[in-house]
């Protein structure tokens, strides 16, 4: 991964391609690289859809190697949704393929003068950018089929659907999975709209004739990978719970904790949870000939994903994951898993973030546009987005926009981005992360490695209120680092509980780069990334005033525990004091 592919979409005479050495960004990957490029090269006050914004697609530091779980790909830019820096990452095949082609990142720059759409094709022989307006308004599924027809089935695609072309703030960037279906998405923050503003519909990657990225110390690397995989397989979460039930195994327990946002964050429990839980979903998938245990990319040994078939046993979509099932399910009062799966399919096809769209429909239901629990109405609303009707344009720009358009007060967003599936009144610690994350409300921002292993910030006294601030800070640091490696965050449990598995991760990095990486180095990387992001956001105009949860979380009691969010603003402002 020694080169960068820059494509200037504003160049005279059409897009100009330059392949240059990675230079000052050497040794960075994933989120570290996307945030480095955006913070150094994008003027913070640039319009997110303007020519000065850049879309950066970067495989993780270990992507393209034989290391298990290393295929997450980061996408970064200034976000049209939050107005700040954004990194959103995705599974799928592209990260491995891009890394094997030798690219540390693809950077889309500028903006085409005409309203044309382009296809980018990258293989070992070079890069070709072609104007192709026949792709206009194709859904991701049809688009990928067309690419298969043109380039065969040994490709990986990174694409946008109609939502990205319409530059909607909920638009995602789609990544194809092992079956060459556009089911994986860098969903958060409207990065699909940035790709749409660059006029790029699809990037087709073909790594035929390339080989795995070679580590500096192959023997150490191989041994570390074996220890790492053994650790993942033996842990009950990564070796058993996630493969058996997927991420939606969380639905029942979050519901039991009274933290499962229901009817647009009105309640913390949903009466229909057992009908849409991961346990029920997995049994249904097995009964219909689908598969509840499936990887989103080659090299995943946890395999939290799955294949969802309709009632007739035909493929409909990938197994809708926890956030999606919650957003389109409990949050909208819908307890029909087939309707939720259809919403997931439509989101993937139009290229929409499922969390943002579920939250948006919840707000629309609150406004009386549809009835809570009416799955068919929710499907119709998503179709409006795909068509780009006036209503669809409002919805496709997210929950905050929809709340403003329809005068709704209870709008669950931070920095305009919809909250994920955990109510911060019941679980206060997650509220700290939602409020202060550089990314807007983001559950993955503080999702990862144990601070007691990394020893970031020393021992935290759990009995003190400021403990929550410390924990959130440390988690955000650790997550920023893990997001840079290309590792799936679901390694967290095994890494957290088993010191030898964490050491194996460090050994993988050390053996690949020929350095001696320690926990302190990982911490330093995470802090560096967060510092770049915070500085960019400050210059973009995001201040402490935006590091807050919406007012209703402090005012409205959340049943069944009847709690409000209690962490003070002064404490929230301490998160980044290090």
């Amino acid at each position, binding site marked *: 991964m020694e080169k960068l592919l820059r494509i200037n979409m504003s160049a005279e005479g059409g897009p100009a391609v330059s392949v240059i050495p990675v230079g000052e960004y050497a040794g960075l990957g994933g989120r570290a690289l996307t945030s480095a490029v955006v913070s150094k090269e994008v003027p913070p006050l640039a319009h997110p859809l303007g020519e000065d914004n850049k879309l950066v697609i970067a495989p993780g530091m270990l992507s393209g190697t034989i290391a298990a779980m290393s295929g997450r790909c980061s996408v970064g830019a200034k976000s049209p949704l939050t107005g700040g820096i954004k990194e959103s990452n995705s599974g799928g095949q592209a990260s491995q393929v891009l890394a094997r082609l030798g690219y540390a990142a693809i950077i889309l720059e500028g903006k085409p003068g005409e309203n044309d759409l382009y296809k980018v094709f990258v293989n070992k022989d070079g890069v070709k950018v072609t104007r192709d307006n026949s792709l206009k308004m194709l859904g991701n599924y049809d688009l990928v089929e067309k690419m298969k027809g043109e380039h065969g089935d040994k490709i990986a695609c990174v694409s946008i659907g109609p939502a990205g072309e319409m530059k909607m703030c909920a638009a995602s960037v789609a990544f194809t999975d092992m079956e060459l279906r556009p089911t994986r998405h860098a969903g958060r923050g409207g990065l699909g709209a940035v790709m749409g503003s660059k006029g790029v519909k699809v990037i087709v990657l073909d790594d035929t004739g390339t080989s795995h990225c070679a580590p500096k110390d192959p023997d150490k690397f191989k041994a570390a990978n074996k220890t790492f995989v053994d650790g993942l397989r033996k842990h009950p979460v990564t070796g058993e719970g996630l493969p058996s039930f997927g991420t939606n195994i969380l639905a029942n327990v979050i519901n039991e904790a009274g933290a499962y946002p229901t009817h647009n964050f009105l309640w913390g429990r949903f009466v229909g949870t057992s009908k849409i839980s991961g346990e029920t979903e997995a049994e249904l998938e097995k009964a219909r000939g689908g598969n509840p245990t499936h990887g989103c990319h080659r090299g995943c040994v946890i395999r939290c994903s799955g294949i969802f078939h309709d009632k007739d046993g035909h493929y409909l979509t990938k197994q809708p994951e926890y956030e999606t099932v919650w957003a389109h399910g409990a949050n909208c009062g819908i307890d029909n898993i087939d309707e939720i799966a259809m919403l997931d399919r439509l989101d993937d096809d139009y290229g929409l973030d499922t969390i943002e769209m579920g939250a948006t429909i919840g707000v629309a239901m609150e406004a009386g546009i549809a009835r809570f629990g009416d799955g068919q109405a929710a499907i119709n609303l998503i179709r409006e987005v795909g068509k780009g009707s006036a209503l669809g344009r409002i919805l496709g720009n997210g929950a905050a926009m929809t709340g403003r358009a329809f005068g709704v007060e209870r709008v669950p967003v931070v920095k305009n981005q919809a909250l994920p599936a955990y109510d911060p009144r019941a679980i206060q*610690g*997650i509220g700290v992360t939602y409020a202060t994350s550089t990314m807007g409300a983001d559950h993955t921002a503080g999702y990862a490695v144990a601070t007691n292993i990394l020893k970031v910030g020393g021992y935290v006294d759990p009995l003190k209120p400021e403990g929550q601030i410390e924990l959130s800070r440390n988690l955000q640091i650790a997550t920023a680092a893990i997001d840079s490696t290309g590792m799936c965050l679901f390694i967290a*449990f095994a890494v957290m509980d088993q010191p030898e598995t964490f050491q194996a991760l460090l050994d993988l990095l050390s053996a690949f780069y020929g350095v001696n990486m320690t926990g302190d180095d990982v911490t330093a990387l995470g802090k560096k990334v967060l510092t770049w992001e915070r500085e960019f956001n400050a210059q973009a105009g995001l201040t402490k005033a935006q590091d807050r949860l919406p007012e209703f979380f402090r005012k409205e009691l959340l049943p069944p525990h009847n709690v409000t969010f209690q962490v003070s603003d002064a404490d929230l402002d301490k998160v980044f004091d290090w």
Partner: protein
Amino acid sequence: MTESNLAVPGAAGRLCLTVPADRVPCFFPLLQKGFVLGVPVGCPIRVLLRDGLGLTDEYIETRLQTVFLDGKPVDDIDGAFIRDGETLALAPAMPGLMGAMLRRGGFYAPMRSGITHRDDDNAAPRWIGEGRITMKLFGMALRELGPKLLERGIEVGAGDLSEVIRELPGDCREGLGDLEGLEGQARVTLRVTIAQEGKGTRD
């Protein structure tokens, strides 16, 4: 788990079914939503799990790492007492930060301190003896404990049971006869005999 049959006092109707092993998961939504069991109450949760359900300490330690009492995450199953009428939910370790926060005694437990079960929530049990609790099973606990509890007999809402039975595949419903009578009952004790092969029957 012990093979003893704990009656479910107070349940109105009674339904005994024989279903093939591969159809047992059809009943799992009932176990997730909550079912009533007759168990010893007024004792610590661990005692209930060990003496009431026959689980070993090793199983409890390694497989039941997420425990809720009346919706509150429990950190200390030796210090938390269960009382008549309460709801106990059992699950293994769960993924993600949220799973880490909910895990009993976990490092991230402070992040959900606002809803944590505290000793003073029920420190002084008023009564020790047999009682009725609602139990919920999630994740692998559902697969591991669910079939045995179904065999032993659980009390569920008749409406919920009818819904599950309506959704059973046709071959499984064969022989169950007319279940309309269930609709008239508020609660039903369900006992499932797991047949190694063959069709479902109603005893």
